[in-house]
């Protein structure tokens, strides 16, 4: 299957073009077109998953075409176990969020155009194997997101959009410097990530450390790692529901993906050097995020901060520097995407009905919206890492991994996990339990809303019960990665 990955990357862009050609007043057709294109992407990704050789840990489906050969820039894409899970996640959430976009009522055409461009950017980021191409896709995400938050967002959308944009941009320009730097430091000069994975570990420790820190800065902002996280609550809260889903589900993963794709293979010594700090940051993320989330009075903000908390596990797994930790970390990315995506969908459900996200407006929803109560409880439990659901597997693997390397951190994190539990239980209590508010008559979730969230629920169960469903894909890649350390 030549051009399979290229198809995946540019199919959404084609969708954007097609949507752009449809007259602006045909809302329904635009919506259907966008959904169709996203479904097509999902299907192609499905084919990719089927064709993917799980027994191999190397890059597959690679394509290379010279783009600017004078500057050593080639359009190179490929997929391995680490990226495959994220590509699948992107395609899935992209499709579901597209379905959930019926809450968008204004400027639909522009919305879907921008949305499709965003998809291309995200998929490209996960598939690119040339640092410049990677950077280009990475940046491509920014502007669509800026629009999606700024036009279709909540009351403080402008502030949030600015903040998101500049925070991320500040990180990525530093990455750009590092990309160029590593180009000149590598012998022979190259932007190819696979070649760099061979040549850059030979750099001196100091150089590795400097370059690592530069890349890390960019990724840390995207993840986000404490103390670079404050864009996230604002952006998540102000973004419309489907965009929040994408933001939390996919965009944050770009940062952690970068850590795995760039930092670990390129600078193994530096990563080892900073492993302890990474672990501490992970633990801080975990606990700080949970605590800050707990104090929020805004439903969506709470979920946003809980994302900060969850990403702590990814960092912990990374800091473990062993296959268990890496597996856990990557799985946690996938899980977080699914669970938090679902969470934002659920917040959106009540927001649609109440037009507020303050906890004080909710309460007793379990009585009036039983279906909603089930889904919210389920996802909250998955979020807090209830064994048997997907969240647990990733968290446990991360903890098990870091326990070998830094037992103290693992213990602190495990204790910090209590805060996460408290957080979500209290959230369930505030929203679902108690007496229903006077005069509140919100209809229960419609079948459409259930249909959007159902696949996520099923995935949570599948991964929870049978984690190898995902782990099988990434195992060998992780092994290869660990061997290079």
């Amino acid at each position, binding site marked *: 299957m030549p051009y399979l990955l290229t198809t995946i990357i540019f199919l959404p862009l084609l969708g954007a073009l097609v949507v752009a050609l449809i007259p602006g007043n045909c809302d329904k057709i635009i919506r259907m077109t966008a959904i169709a294109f996203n479904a097509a992407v999902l299907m192609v990704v499905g084919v990719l998953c089927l064709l993917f050789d799980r027994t191999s840990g190397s890059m597959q489906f690679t394509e290379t075409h010279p783009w600017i050969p004078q500057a050593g820039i080639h359009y190179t894409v490929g997929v391995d176990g680490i990226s495959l899970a994220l590509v699948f996640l992107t395609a899935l959430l992209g499709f579901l969020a597209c379905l959930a976009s019926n809450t968008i009522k204004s400027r639909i055409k522009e919305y879907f155009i921008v949305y499709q461009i965003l998809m291309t950017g995200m998929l490209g980021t996960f598939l690119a194997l040339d640092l410049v191409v990677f950077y280009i896709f990475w940046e491509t995400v920014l502007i669509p997101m800026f629009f999606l938050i700024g036009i279709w967002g909540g009351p403080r959308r402008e502030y949030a959009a600015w903040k998101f944009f500049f925070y991320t941009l500040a990180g990525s*320009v530093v990455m*750009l*410097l590092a990309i160029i730097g590593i180009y000149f430091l590598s012998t022979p000069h190259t932007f190819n990530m696979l070649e760099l994975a061979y040549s850059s570990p030979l750099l001196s420790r100091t150089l590795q450390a400097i370059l690592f820190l530069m890349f890390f800065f960019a990724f840390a902002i995207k993840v986000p790692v404490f103390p670079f996280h404050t864009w996230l609550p604002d952006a998540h809260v102000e973004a419309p529901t489907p965009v929040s889903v994408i933001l939390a589900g996919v965009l944050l993963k770009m940062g952690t993906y970068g850590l795995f794709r760039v930092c670990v293979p390129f600078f193994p010594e530096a990563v080892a050097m900073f492993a302890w700090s990474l672990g501490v940051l992970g633990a801080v993320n975990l606990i700080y995020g949970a605590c800050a989330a707990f104090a929020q009075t805004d439903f969506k903000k709470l979920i946003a901060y809980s994302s900060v908390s969850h990403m702590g596990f990814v960092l912990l797994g990374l800091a473990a520097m062993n296959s268990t930790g890496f597996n856990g970390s990557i799985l946690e990315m996938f899980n977080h995407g699914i669970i938090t995506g679902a969470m934002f969908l659920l917040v959106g459900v009540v927001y649609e009905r109440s037009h507020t996200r303050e906890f004080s407006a909710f309460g007793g929803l379990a009585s009036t919206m039983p279906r909603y109560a089930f889904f919210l409880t389920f996802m909250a439990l998955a979020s807090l890492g209830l064994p048997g659901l997907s969240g647990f597997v990733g968290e446990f693997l991360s903890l098990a991994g870091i326990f070998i390397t830094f037992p103290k951190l693992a213990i602190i994190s495990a204790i910090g996990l209590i805060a996460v539990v408290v957080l979500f239980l209290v959230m369930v209590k505030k929203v679902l339990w108690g007496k229903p508010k006077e005069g509140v008559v919100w209809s229960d979730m419609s079948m459409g809303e259930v249909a959007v969230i159902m696949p996520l629920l099923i995935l949570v169960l599948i991964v929870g019960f049978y984690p190898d469903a995902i782990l099988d894909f990434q195992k060998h890649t992780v092994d290869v990665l660990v061997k290079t350390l």
Partner: protein
Amino acid sequence: MMNSLQFIKPELVLTAAGLMLLVCGVFGLRRKPLGLIALMAIVIGFFSLPMTLDSSSMVFSGMLTNDVFSFVMRALVLVATGLAVLMSIGYSWSDHDDAGEYYFFLLVAAISMMLTVSATNLLMIYLAIETLSIVSYVLACSFKKDLYSTEAGLKYFLFGALSTGIMLYGISLVYGLLGTLSLPAIGLKLAAGGIHEPTLVLAGLLVFAGFAFKASLVPFHMWVADVYEGAPWPVAAFFSIGPKAIGFALLARVFFGFPAFLTSGWEGIAVFLAIATMTIGNFSAFHQESVKRLLAFSSVAQAGYILAGLAAGVLGLKAAFFYIVIYTFMNMGAFACASFLSSERAPLESFKGMGRRAPGWALVFSIFLLSLAGLPPLAGFLAKFFVLVAVIDVKQYFLATAVVVNSVVAFFYYLKVIKVMYFEDSPDSQPIRIPVSGMIVLAICLSAVLLFGFWPQLIMNILALIFA
């Protein structure tokens, strides 16, 4: 001699057309046909350019040179002027007559710019720059009953007069030191050595200041915003691409590149000025409420990036050249969009709701702005990227940092315009019509920005020729 005449064929075409325009203007030909004549002349000139390639490398006894650089720059100058003419045709002039003279001035500017880039003698360079300046003063003052336009013209003149004075004084010192003004001869003399260096540096610096004025480097940029704001949109657009490209071409030819004049020691100043230029340009644009001024300062900042390229060796020269080409199109596009979408002063509020009033043009404008800001995968990004690559290659890490920090700051004001267009609604929902010639300008610029962004080889191959 025939050979030499062959070389200046495009200039001769333009001169003839200019004179014709004057005559036709006097006989009351309307604005549009006049513009078309000018345009036709430029097109003819453009297509007669390849014929000049056959000439020998030195023409008019070494006054002009026939190298790839001058060829390409002449082409660029013609394109820039052509775009400005096209834009002028579509522009809604109010309270302005003398259309024939207007186009005549544009053509004279084009001629002088073409001679500048192919000149290899400081005397010729001085004359051409001075001509360009004088014509520019008059162009800036196009609305002679307008408070803004006249003030712009006068400010431009006052600033320019001092600049050319300083430059002339510098040239006179160069003459005194080296006894010649021909660049190849200067190169030989310098290579031979034995020149009193402080005086040489002094003379060079004064000449540098004159070029920097054209390239609008800090602190020789102060006129930019006021002149652009006061001048009519097409003139401002022209200023922002034509003379600026000339400034850089001169800097490249005389100070950083070709037959080397004072090759060493300029990098330090260039680095310093590059940082100052981009920073002050960006910071000044930050709070602008007038899109015209904003774009003016943006063009100053862009000059900083180009200069950063010049400061970075051969790779940097390539990058700077690449940047200039890209810049010509994207900046022209941005100016053209802004002029057609808004009024002469172009306050930011007038762009409110443009995303709905003129969705297509708002998108095009956004693309130009984002390209200026350096967003991948647009051409502006690649330009910045190559500059950065060159800068890092020569280990100017501080400069590299300044470039990226500045590009972050710059994003703010470019996005501010886009934000106003898309995020805010306007009370006025009347759709906006753009004249055909305006569309052509935008189409050319847009396709260039996209084409060069996705297929930079086009320029790369030329670069390979120049630096062969």
